[in-house]
């Protein structure tokens, strides 16, 4: 049960049950769709960019607790960040959940903050894609590509 409690931490369950920023943006100017063909999870990420900075972020979609909470916490943590900062944060997040252990992100990389709650994911390798779907989709929205992102 201890591994499970590490995975399904209170913060994650809270964001799954009450996802934040779960809506389109009235002033949004970027959108990207993500899809995990293995489980059928779909997500759309909406951004309002002001120059190079994420002014606002939202998402919609259906998914498991890990993917929904990840999207919810992601939208909270990228608000106000520049594209470069958001991408650096994704890199750090990916290291956290995929568990390489050694940080490739430079010393200047932003701190994970609340995103640390996903550290339990590394014990569940098949769930890494759930945790990273929203981030891959965000990356594509930041790059402003039109194609649907797939985890495969």
């Amino acid at each position: 049960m201890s591994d499970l409690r590490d995975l399904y931490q209170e913060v994650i369950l809270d964001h799954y049950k009450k996802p934040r920023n779960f809506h389109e943006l009235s002033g949004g100017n970027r959108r990207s769709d993500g899809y995990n063909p293995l489980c059928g999870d779909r997500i759309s990420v909406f951004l309002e960019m002001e120059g190079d900075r994420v002014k606002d972020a939202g998402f919609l979609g259906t998914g498991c607790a890990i993917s929904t909470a990840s999207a919810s916490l992601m939208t909270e943590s990228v608000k106000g960040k520049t594209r470069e900062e958001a991408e650096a944060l994704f890199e750090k997040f990916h290291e956290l959940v995929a568990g390489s252990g050694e940080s490739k992100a430079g010393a200047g990389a932003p701190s994970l903050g609340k995103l640390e709650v996903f550290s339990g994911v590394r014990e569940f390798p098949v769930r890494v894609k759930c945790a990273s779907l929203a981030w891959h989709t965000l990356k594509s929205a930041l790059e402003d590509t039109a194609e649907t992102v797939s985890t495969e």
Partner: protein
Amino acid sequence: MTGPGVASAGTRSAARERFDVDTIREDFPILRRTVYGRPLVYLDNAATSQKPRSVIDAVTRYYESENSNIHRGVHYLSELATREYEAGRGRVQRFLGAASPSEIIFVRGTTEAINLVAASYGRSKVEAGDEILITWLEHHSNIVPWQLLCEQQRARLVVVPIDDRGDLRMDEFDRLLSPRTKIVAVSHISNALGTINPIERIVRRAHENGAVVLVDGAQAAPHIAIDVQKMDCDFYAISGHKMYAPTGVGVLYGKEKLLEAMPPYQGGGDMIRSVSFEKATYNSLPYKFEAGTPNVEAGIGIGAAIDYLDSIGLGRIAAHEQELLDYATRVLTDISGLRVIGTAREKASVLSFVLEGIHPHDIGTILDREGIAIRTGHHCAQPVMERFGVPATARASFAFYNTKAEIDALAAALRKVIEVFR
């Protein structure tokens, strides 16, 4: 054989008389293992079944003392391996109730069997404007080969809907069947919902309309007795690995008359009689459709699996599994917030469900840590998921080696899932 071995064989046959599941479980070595420190509860049988000792031994025996290429050599081992492999074909013929071993074509699995029919029969018989009739219950492997065929031949794919229980809408089937219908492709048992389809009626109606019928029997072969002649279907496809045999072997049954008229599927060795650069003449059935060295050990293995199933009896297997399904349905519907997806009048061995407010993937992960293996996701049947308005389900699927105690463990673990998410 040693003394205890003889004694245990005696106990075993006595156990089968009264279907003693504990003794049957001893035939499956993997059921003794633990997962995350807990006894394995394997409820993912619709994905693949576990293998009894006799099948594992048959494969080992082949590699230790019979390994050789078949249908080619004049030497002792080649003759021995050929005999064993062809004996496997004979057992499949009996198992399916086919009229002749010429009608039993070894392929890689159900998927390849369907692709063979779509490519060979389909491309030679289906023309622009023709229709292929499938159902809403189909696995992707009984959808996509027909889509490819329709694209190539400019034919149309028509889909029979299902009702809210997961039963085929037979009124719609009758309505959609037309003189343009060339092929009806339908699963015997749905992998996602467990629905048993009324094959005999479907075949009768299709034949009245001049269409041939392919039955995807991947989920039926391990659970119910099959008689292709009684069904009168034109093609029947099965996978070895779902019926306690090794992976990598499946069977396409086809009526001899149809197979004779069909062009080869793949070219290569073994499927020819003679080859010059101008022309090749093809081998007789079933070899015309078996190009290249086949999966010999799996052909032998599927024979051993059928012997094993015969020793228990498909009738008793079906009875035990039905009891498990009824018990599981009762125990699981007692869990508040649990909804069973698929409540067809006739069902086999599959229980698909969702828990309110909890995604199936999360259910699967938590159950896994309890040692319980189930399938979560769309089960390669996305149209079925769409029909029931869910992105995915959790699916427990049973085999005759499963027990009521394992279903109790499943129910207890599901309560734990709800606890985690409370």
